[in-house]
């Protein structure tokens, strides 16, 4: 149909003008994207080696590697996910399977999460500092940083999981009920396994969001760059390491660039994998 439509459309002077502008805008965005990536790769690739990935930073990060930073980042991520996932998935299951879309309770919970999704990360940092670090007495630690991250991740984890469950056809639920399965059995044996790819995609998106976070961790997990001994130790996340090296350490640009390259590579990998999961699922459903 588009072909005939195209033929019918007369490409007048104004059309050509609009088209040119749009193509220029798109080319501009592409060029900038490639510019950023190539800058990061050119500046960082020479500095990256196996040793860089496993050594601890020395001399405020100018020498050595990012081994301890990666460990801290991983621990932060683990804490955040262990706390956020059960909360997010129970919320999503309740919203998608147990309460009607128009119920007051559902609307309230959804609205609260929507607002939470818009809260700037620096505000999460303030909250984490006041609540986890000071009020609960966790101090500057991986635990308080991870808990702050968990609050940040909730909205995206809930909304992806809820969408995944809602996308399952109702015939699943009806057939399960007709076979006499209890609702919990339906949920655990049928619905959750069927929605697993979307749950995984949401999980990956959440991991990406957590890895990218800096502002919320400034005053919660702290700046200390050595290998963390426990969850109550302060630990520096990879994104914060980049910030500190480029702003506070003269001569830290090369390792900062290499760390940025590592972070971007990780995130691009995670995001592409998440897209594959989500879109692969869509295609399967269409066929």
């Amino acid at each position, binding site marked *: 149909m588009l072909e005939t439509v195209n033929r019918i459309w007369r490409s007048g002077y104004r059309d050509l003008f*609009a088209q040119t502008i749009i193509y220029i805008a798109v080319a501009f965005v592409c060029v900038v994207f490639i510019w950023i990536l190539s800058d990061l790769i050119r500046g960082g690739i020479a500095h990256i080696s196996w040793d860089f990935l496993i050594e601890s930073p020395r001399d405020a990060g100018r020498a050595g590697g990012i081994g301890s930073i990666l460990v801290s980042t991983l621990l932060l991520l683990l804490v955040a996910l262990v706390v956020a996932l059960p909360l997010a998935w129970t919320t999503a299951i309740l919203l998608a399977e147990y309460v009607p879309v128009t119920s007051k309770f559902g609307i309230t919970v959804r609205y609260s*999460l929507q607002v939470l999704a818009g809260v700037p990360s*620096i505000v999460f940092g303030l909250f984490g500092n006041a609540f986890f670090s000071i009020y609960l007495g966790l101090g500057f630690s991986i635990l308080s940083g991870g808990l702050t991250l968990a609050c940040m991740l909730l909205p995206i984890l809930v909304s992806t999981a809820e969408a995944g469950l809602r996308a399952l056809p109702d015939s699943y639920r009806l057939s399960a009920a007709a076979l006499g399965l209890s609702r919990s059995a339906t949920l655990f044996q049928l619905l959750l396994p069927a929605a697993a790819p979307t749950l995984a995609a949401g999980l990956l998106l959440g991991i990406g969001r957590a890895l990218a976070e800096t*502002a919320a961790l400034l005053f919660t997990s702290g700046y200390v760059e050595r290998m963390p001994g426990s969850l109550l130790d302060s630990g520096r996340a990879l994104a914060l390491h980049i910030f500190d090296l480029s702003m506070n350490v003269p001569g830290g640009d090369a390792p900062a660039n290499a760390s940025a390259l590592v972070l971007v590579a990780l995130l691009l990998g995670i995001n592409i994998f998440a897209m594959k999961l989500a879109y692969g699922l869509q295609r399967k459903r269409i066929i």
Partner: protein
Amino acid sequence: MTDRLLRWVLRIGAITSALIMLLILFFLLLESWPALQQITLTRFFTDPSWHPLEAAYNLLPMLSGTLYASIGALLLAIPLGIASALFIVYYAPPHLALLYQRLIELLAGIPSVVFGFWGLITLVPLINQLHPPGASLLAGILILTLMILPTITLTAHAALLAVPDEFQRGAVALGLSRWGVIRGVMLPAARTGIVAGIILAAGRAIGETMAVLMVTGNVVQHATSLYDPIRTLAANIALEMAYAMGDHRGVLFVSGLLLMLLVMLLSGMAATLSNKHHA
């Protein structure tokens, strides 16, 4: 039995998730309360300057910095974002459209600290050659533009796709040109969705911290030109929280509260818009 147990577990999870929002608001209020009692609200606008150690708390320069940077970024990102969405929906051949959409999605996944770092090593020196000092409002605007572009593009894309097919067919049947269809029919029909996306992007621009902090120079002043360094509200919190005590700390929480209320207002507006659209 297990069904009832499960239902309770689920309900407790959901209530906890919903309460986090209130917990955040409560703690922001709690921390800013002492400062709000000591300092009358008007002093945030009438104090001679921002010198927190000498108890002068004028937030206006930071507010103007935040607004200039956000508005500048919106002015650039709105045309670019809408053009990108039009390209994906109407102009590009299918495989190119998909590729470009992925590129925009990946752009959305680049962390703010990396944008800031790139701005610091690439944009700031470039602007410095044009007009020193380089770290400036302009650098902040350009970086913010890149960061909110994906939001605007992806929401505009979704809004354009949601316009019923008949609209396009009808307009084409009337003999409108391609641009005529887009300008006269599709864009107006998708307007609410696009505006909701722009409002969301504005919220993101206002709250953005790290990237802006790294490229704007962080001088507390009202900018008189694009090349002046500025400091935004969010950057101010990140810069001063480390050593703030007493009222100073309280004022930082007040500005955090202010940011949060602004963003809540914006996301509320976006939500009402898109709800009205669906109804």
